[in-house]
C-alpha cells in the first residue's frame, strides 16, 4: 500500500461525514424494509407505519429483564372507530411474541403500560388492528446492556 498516514487522515476527514450519512440512511432504509417484511410474515398483512400509534420505551436501559413499555393509540374508542388489538414483537428475542392487548369500544382506552424482557438491543415493533380493518405499525429502538431472556 502506497498510502501515508497523512493521506489516510486527509481522506478520512473529508469523507467521514458523507460516509456516515450514507451508512446511516442505508441502514435505516434496510431496517425499515426488514421490519415491514417481518410484520407481513407474522400478521399475514401489510401494515402502514403510523404516527397515531405511540410506542414509548427508554432508548437505553441497563437490564433486559424489566424494560418499561408504554403504548398509546390516538383513537376516539367509539363503536365506529376503536382499536381492537395491539400486538408487540421483539424480533431479536428467542421467542418473538411479547404480548397482545385486546380492547373494546366505549369502556376501554387504547393505552397500556407494562414491563418486558429483551435479549439484545433491537427495534421493538407494535402493530395495531383498528376496528375498520386497518393495520398500523410503529417501532422503537431499545439498547439493553444485559440479556433478559435467560
Amino acid at each position, binding site marked *: 500500500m502506497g498510502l501515508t498516514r497523512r493521506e489516510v487522515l486527509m481522506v478520512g476527514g473529508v469523507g467521514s461525514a458523507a460516509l456516515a450519512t450514507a451508512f446511516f440512511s442505508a441502514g435505516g432504509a434496510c431496517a425499515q424494509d426488514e421490519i415491514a417484511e417481518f410484520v407481513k410474515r407474522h400478521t399475514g398483512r401489510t401494515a402502514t407505519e403510523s404516527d397515531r400509534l405511540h410506542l414509548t420505551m427508554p432508548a437505553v436501559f441497563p437490564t433486559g429483564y424489566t424494560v418499561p413499555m408504554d403504548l398509546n393509540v390516538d383513537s376516539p374508542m367509539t363503536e365506529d372507530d376503536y382499536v381492537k388489538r395491539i400486538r408487540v414483537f421483539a424480533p431479536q428475542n428467542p421467542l418473538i411474541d411479547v*404480548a397482545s392487548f385486546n380492547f373494546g369500544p366505549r369502556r376501554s382506552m387504547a393505552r397500556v403500560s407494562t414491563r418486558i424482557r429483551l435479549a439484545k438491543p433491537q427495534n421493538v415493533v407494535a402493530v395495531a388492528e383498528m376496528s375498520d380493518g386497518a393495520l398500523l405499525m410503529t417501532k422503537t429502538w431499545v439498547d439493553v446492556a444485559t440479556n433478559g*431472556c435467560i
Partner: protein
Amino acid sequence: MTTPTPRVLMQSTATKGEVFRVKTIISHQMETGLRHDAQDRVIPRKIINRFVCRYGGVEVFSVDLHEAVSANPYIEFYLRATESGPLEFVWQEDGGGSYRLETQLAVA
C-alpha cells in the same frame, strides 16, 4: 415458588364518563421455559398467559402474555367509568391455575 399474589390499585369512585387508571400486578416467576437447572434439564415453562378485566360482567380489556413479559407482570391500563359495578380481574397460568380479584366502582 411462593403463591402468586395479585394486587390491583384503582380509585373506588368516579364521575360518569371519567377515564381512570387501573394498575395491576401479580407476583409470579414467569418461568420462560428457556432456562436450565444445575443438571442441565430444561425448567418447564410456567407463565401467566392471560389477563382479563371484566367491568359489570363484560370483558373490557384483556392481554395475551408471552414469555417476553417480565417476571411479576405489571399491567397498567385505562377505562372509562360508565356505570357503578364490579370490576373483576383474572390472571390465568400455564397448567390451568388462575388468580382472581374483584373491586367495586361507584359512579356518581
